[in-house]
């Protein structure tokens, strides 16, 4: 590994470095990756237990349940996004780093998504199967979850940055982020339902894509501003 940067490394190097570090940290603590997945699977199990195993009902409510479970599971994992950095002083180091803070915040969020959002997208067909979702619809489910979890992670990073260091962080984070996340849930779940009903579902995909692009380009700035404020 070349560690003799005689020049100031560019922002792309910084972005990759922080993604790599966070992935390495997650690798050393696999619980952080697995807990949201278990949570996702368990919420999906709760529903048939509560309303009964009728196939018709499960097919009808499957997209909604899967999406709500994905939203809650992402929210659960977001709380720890900046927590350990705040506690061990890494956040201070990020703030005085020559790398722009939005880049570092984006890197951390990307790593978070790779750890919690992406595996969730990968296992979603498995759970969708138990809800008797036709395999043709599963592609749409995965696509909406892919776009949706990216937006959720980015949106949630703003909330995590605002609440880092507060005592009642977890409950507060949900209170801040859930109303903001409602459009994503609404677009995602309804698009899958439309696809399941053989209806036109293009609008929702485009809207989710637009949301994801807008949040990639805007959310890191809000997160950076929030981190500066929270760490004062």
């Amino acid at each position: 590994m070349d560690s003799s940067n005689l020049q100031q490394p560019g922002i792309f190097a910084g972005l990759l470095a922080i993604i790599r570090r966070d992935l390495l940290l997650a690798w050393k603590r696999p619980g952080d990756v697995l807990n949201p997945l278990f949570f996702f699977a368990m919420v999906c199990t709760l529903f048939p237990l509560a309303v009964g195993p009728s196939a018709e009902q499960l097919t009808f409510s499957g997209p909604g349940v899967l999406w709500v479970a994905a939203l809650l599971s992402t929210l659960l994992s977001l709380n720890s996004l900046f927590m350990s950095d705040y506690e061990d002083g890494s956040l201070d180091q990020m703030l005085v780093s020559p790398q722009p803070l939005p880049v570092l915040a984006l890197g951390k969020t990307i790593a978070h998504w790779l750890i919690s959002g992406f595996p969730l997208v990968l296992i979603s067909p498995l759970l969708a199967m138990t809800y008797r979702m036709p395999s043709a619809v599963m592609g749409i489910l995965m696509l909406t979850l892919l776009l949706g979890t990216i937006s959720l992670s980015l949106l949630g990073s703003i909330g995590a940055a605002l609440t880092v260091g507060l005592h009642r962080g977890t409950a507060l984070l949900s209170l801040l982020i859930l109303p903001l996340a409602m459009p994503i849930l609404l677009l995602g779940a309804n698009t899958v339902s439309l696809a399941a009903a053989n209806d036109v579902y293009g609008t929702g995909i485009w809207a989710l894509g637009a949301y994801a692009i807008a949040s990639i380009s805007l959310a890191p700035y809000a997160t950076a501003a929030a981190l500066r404020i929270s760490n004062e």
Partner: protein
Amino acid sequence: MWKFFHQMASPPYFYRLAATLIPWFAIPGLILIAYGAYAGLFLVSMDYQQGDAFRIIYVHVPSAYLSMMAYMMMAVGGGIGLIWRLKLAHAVGAAAAPLGAAFTFLALVTGSIWGRPMWGTWWEWGDPRLTSELILLFLYFGYMALRSSIDDTAKADKASAVLALVGVVNVVIVHFSVEWWSSLHQGQTVFKKGTMDADMRIPLFAMLIGFSFVFGAMLLRRLRTEVLFRERRTRWVRELVLSPEGGK
């Protein structure tokens, strides 16, 4: 021009100015509301479809309007506060949030009461405006919860300003996505556009302006409280309190 703004924003000046301004907002506002309410309740002839139930718009629409205006004010105030470090602008957010939440609540409840004879149910998920209004209420709750959980006022100001700015972008997205969603489910709304006669509209305008004026008066009063609290350690507050006439 800049000098004027700076003088406006100086806390002791604003504290006194607001006290003189309050009646100038409150009295015209109350007169307009009195006229609008009387006309809306008794003078305007009833809607041929909805009967007399449509008279609820005279409180529902102004409340819904103010619920969104208050959120806009929080966001604009927060933005100004972050960029120009104007403490008074941050105080606007703190003062407007509970008022906005109250009017959002009012818009929700009146909408629900109106829906009861129309839909036969107190709550209709298919109505996009009520759903958006409910999400707006949650946004207000989040804003106030964040504010109250940060002890340091300066920090609470900045953090909640960021939240309000993110939230205001989201309000627009909520609006469009909920419209799309309700169109999928053949959602119905009782508020139809362009079906109002002029004689129905004039009292509604009176109510809108009247509510806005009264809101202004209430906001100014709360701003005075915020200014007093934030400046409690300063010399001018000390002199104000010790002066023989007091400064409530």
